[in-house]
């Protein structure tokens, strides 16, 4: 499953970068995040409780920052596992300054397996988009507070 897009948030790249690198702030942006803790250099462990209407599940996983060019680009690798299935993927985030705002370009590809891939195929992409939307909405709120 491919996922890519763009979102503009009302803060300078430096502020966005600092949020992305602060587990506490980042946790508040991740939809359904119950826990996000550092587990080594550039590795975070996370617990997410994902709910989209009738579909809900708990997932445990990790995020590893594979490459970073402050404050404009990072490459991530994610892994997650829950009762309904598993997900692995790699993606990049690019931060581009646009006046007082930052354009965040994201792109990546994920492999999804297990029941959720077999049965939820039709819904996966839509569900991913909802979560990305929730992530950026929460991030905008966080940034507004910080400003």
């Amino acid at each position, binding site marked *: 499953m491919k996922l890519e897009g763009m979102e503009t948030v009302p803060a300078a790249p430096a502020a966005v970068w600092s949020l992305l690198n602060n587990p506490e702030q980042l946790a508040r942006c991740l939809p359904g995040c119950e826990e996000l803790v550092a587990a080594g250099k550039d590795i975070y462990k996370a617990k997410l409780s994902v709910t989209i*209407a*009738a*579909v809900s599940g708990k997932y445990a996983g990790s995020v590893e920052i594979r490459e970073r060019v402050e404050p404009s680009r990072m490459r991530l690798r994610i892994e997650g596992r829950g009762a*309904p299935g598993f997900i692995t993927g790699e993606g990049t985030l690019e931060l581009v300054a646009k006046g007082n705002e930052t354009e965040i370009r994201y792109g990546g590809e994920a492999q999804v397996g297990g029941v959720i891939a077999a049965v939820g*195929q*039709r819904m996966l992409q*839509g569900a991913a988009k909802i979560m990305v939307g929730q992530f950026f909405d929460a991030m905008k709120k966080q940034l507004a507070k910080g400003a």
Partner: protein
Amino acid sequence: MIPTEFEYLRPRSMEEALGLLAQHGPEAKLLAGGHSLLPLMKLRLAAPKYLIDLGGLEQLSYVRDDGPEIAIGAMTPHAEVESSELIRRCCPLLAEAAAEIGDVQVRNRGTMGGSLAHADPGADYPAAILALEAKIKVRSREGERTIEAASFFLDLLTTALQPREIILEVRVARDRERSGAAYVKLHQPASGFAIVGTAARLMLDPKGNCETARIGVTGVGAKAYRAEAVEKALAGKRLTAALLAKASAMAAEGVEPLSDLHASAAYRLAMAEVITKRALEKALDRARGGRR
């Protein structure tokens, strides 16, 4: 294939159902047929602690002649909508869409309210409900309100329903003179869901030109939508074959198409055009007095 443990509740009245829903909040799900919810629970993609079965509310299963409108109770099974003499005569588009849902078992158990509340991106009813500009009456303990079809579907599996609201009924206007409608669908053969489904409704003026067009499309994006670009392209025009073809090309304008194992985004977009054109042609034929 066994769901996690849950408590089964079967209210006998609407008041009781609303009370249970308010009491158990996000840990409860309403069961209104269950042909989408139970598979999700068996696969453990959904694990509600409380299942509130609305199946005991027989008073919510009806098709009623209400003057200029037809009222359909939320717990009316698809099979009854499909076979209702009143609906087939006064609002055949709805019966045509109901007949396309799943298989016989699904149509016997599944209900209109259940299907609308679940808002599956490939469900059939949403396209028809949008084209018919239906009104969806809902109730919570605080009172009743009516939601227009056009503002009901918000996103994947997400509707304008509030957590404590239950759908009461769906109201559709009777077809007027010189109007015709059709639902055309490209099936995903295994599930029966729509890869693309278009419900087209055309109202002609006395000269036979298009007065208004209402087009609902399901399956293409994360939610069903009104193809407003197509509607605008047809309004006030003489409906030639060339115009129908040109308008159909706008069937997915502004929509981000889904992509899955069964149909890529590009395929969905191409089929949105083809299926919409067929639905328009069929609706026009019916509006002009062809077989309904």
